[in-house]
């Protein structure tokens, strides 16, 4: 990569993470002010979303879960329509019927978002099968948590994808938490990626707080999938630094552990790295930050002023 494209890529990754952070913190603040229902944020994990999604091509598909704002925004979803969905408004991507936890945007290829933990794993094989039978070269990225990796459907999904050569990039965002249960209370090993071996699949763990490392690991994995049409398990090892669902006082969290991960904040670290390397200037980054703030202000205004769905909507979209 030459300097200019490196700078472009860095800007995009940084902008994406900042946008995700700003969007989620605004949604959380709105909840605290009584202006929005609860929501799940991915604060602390932005590098995972931005790094992986930016490695995908536009015809690739994404399945995600309750903690999806990052994947959607990195993919280019409109923050206004997303915020409207969070608020249950008619202008939301799902007409307010989803609310915050299962936003799908079909036109962007972010499909079948589900808040059933493991739902995305159960559906990804079918999407992979469609893609593969249609002869498309698309890759299906399936995001899930360390909790989902405890569900039986994880086992079933990876086994089938491997057996049938389905082009699925499994991305386990191991954020150390399963709602109010620490990951260590749910499994003996620290990592999920070695489980890929049970299915004859390749698996790799990457530092989920280093956006460039994630991006690079995802690129390698995606290239491999395109070449071999076989699935791949990528684990992004990271940490959820806000609560599980707003509001959440996090009294169940070990403060030292939390502090140690906050010290490794993906946005702050990346900023430091970029400035140190001189890739981007401080002014540049500040401009991105300001632009994002403006975007989010606009998004929240749009969402707040949007109408709720009409009462008749209660009964529509049930059957095709």
């Amino acid at each position, binding site marked *: 990569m030459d300097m200019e494209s490196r700078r472009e890529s860095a800007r995009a990754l940084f902008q994406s993470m900042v946008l995700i952070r700003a969007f989620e913190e605004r949604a959380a603040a709105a909840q605290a002010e009584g202006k929005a229902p609860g929501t799940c944020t991915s604060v602390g994990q932005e590098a995972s979303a931005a790094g992986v999604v930016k490695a995908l091509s536009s015809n690739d598909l994404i399945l995600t879960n309750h903690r999806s704002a990052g994947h959607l925004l990195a993919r280019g979803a409109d923050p206004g329509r997303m915020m409207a969905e969070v608020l249950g408004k008619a202008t939301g991507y799902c007409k307010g019927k989803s609310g915050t936890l299962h936003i799908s945007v079909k036109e962007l290829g972010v*499909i079948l978002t589900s808040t059933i933990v493991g739902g995305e794993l159960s559906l990804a094989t079918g999407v992979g099968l469609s893609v593969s039978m249609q002869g498309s070269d698309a890759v299906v990225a399936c995001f899930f948590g360390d909790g989902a990796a405890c569900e039986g459907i994880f086992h*079933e999904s990876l086994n089938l994808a491997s057996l049938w050569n389905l082009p699925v990039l499994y991305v386990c965002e191991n954020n150390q938490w399963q709602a109010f249960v620490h990951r260590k209370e749910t499994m003996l090993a620290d990592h999920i990626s070695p489980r890929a071996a049970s299915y004859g699949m390749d698996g790799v763990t990457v530092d989920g707080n280093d956006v460039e490392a994630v991006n690079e690991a995802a690129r390698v994995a995606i290239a491999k999938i395109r070449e071999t049409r076989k699935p791949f398990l990528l684990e992004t090892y990271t940490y959820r630094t806000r609560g599980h669902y707003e509001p959440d006082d996090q009294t169940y969290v070990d403060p030292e552990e939390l502090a140690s991960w906050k010290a490794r904040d993906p946005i702050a670290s990346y900023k430091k790295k970029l400035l140190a390397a001189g890739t981007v200037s401080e002014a540049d980054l500040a401009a991105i930050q300001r632009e994002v703030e403006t975007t989010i202000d606009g998004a929240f205004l749009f969402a707040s002023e949007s109408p709720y769905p009409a009462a008749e909507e209660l009964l529509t979209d*049930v059957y095709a």
Partner: protein
Amino acid sequence: MSTITAHEAIGQALAEEMRRDSTVIAFGEGVATKRHELVEEFGRARVRNTPLAEGIIAGTAAGAAATGLRPVIDLLFAPFICFAMDEIVNSAGKLRYMSGGQFSFPMVTLAMTGAGWGVGAQHNHNNEAWFVHSPGLKVVMPSNPADFKGLLKASIRDDNPVVFFLDIGLLYVPGEVPEGEHVVPLGKAAIPREGSDVTLISYGKTVHACLAAAKTLEGEGISAEVVDLRTLKPLDEEAFLASVRKTGRAVVVHEASRTCGVGAEVAATIAEKSFASLAGPVVRIAGPDVPAPSSYPLEQAFVPSAAQIVTSVRGLVGK
């Protein structure tokens, strides 16, 4: 017309629909083994055996259905659907609505159930009411080979998730089936026998108990109309309400356990929407609220019989 079993009628429907539409695929535990004629015609990509894992079979179907394929999956016996409830109910049934209409799920789930095989409640559990009670699904349960074919073809063409129950006691009984294009629309009941004194409403195997009972009753001067629901969701209310408005009496019959079964819905609908026409209580004859036993005589005793229906109707008509 040819005389074939329901099992063969299903094979015919699958082959015809796969020929007609290249997006129709079929998979499940042993589908490729049991339907090798489909493998021969359509190849191993469209007709597949799977690992023993109902959850991912159904999930794969839902994911594929939402992205351009029309999967037919075989989950073997109805109790095994327990491992696929999330995929069928929470994904296929709800994600259209939850996404504001962005996705549709044209998929068919086949499952056998009912008495006749003597292997007990972990194979024999008439749980169709679960799916009738779940939003976004359609539910079908045919009573004869022609309907097996026609309803399966309609189910495959439907853009919604259909749970299609095969009453095992009917699968190997032959009947007349039209060749080629024979599509029975979902949501339409049949009236295999007309009558004026009482309406017998049923589906699946017990339709035949109703028909036998009607024959016996005819000899006693009681004229029974038989309604075969065929589709359990959407229910053809108009069909059975019209019949009850005519006869003034209703007996609802099914093999599934009584409590909260489909018969409860039918009886409650009658009690609400055709109350004024009723000359007597709405009677339900159903399986007892116990797991299905294996032992042959107990298994048989589980299933509503023509004799029970006759006795009930006599009581109702006051003869």
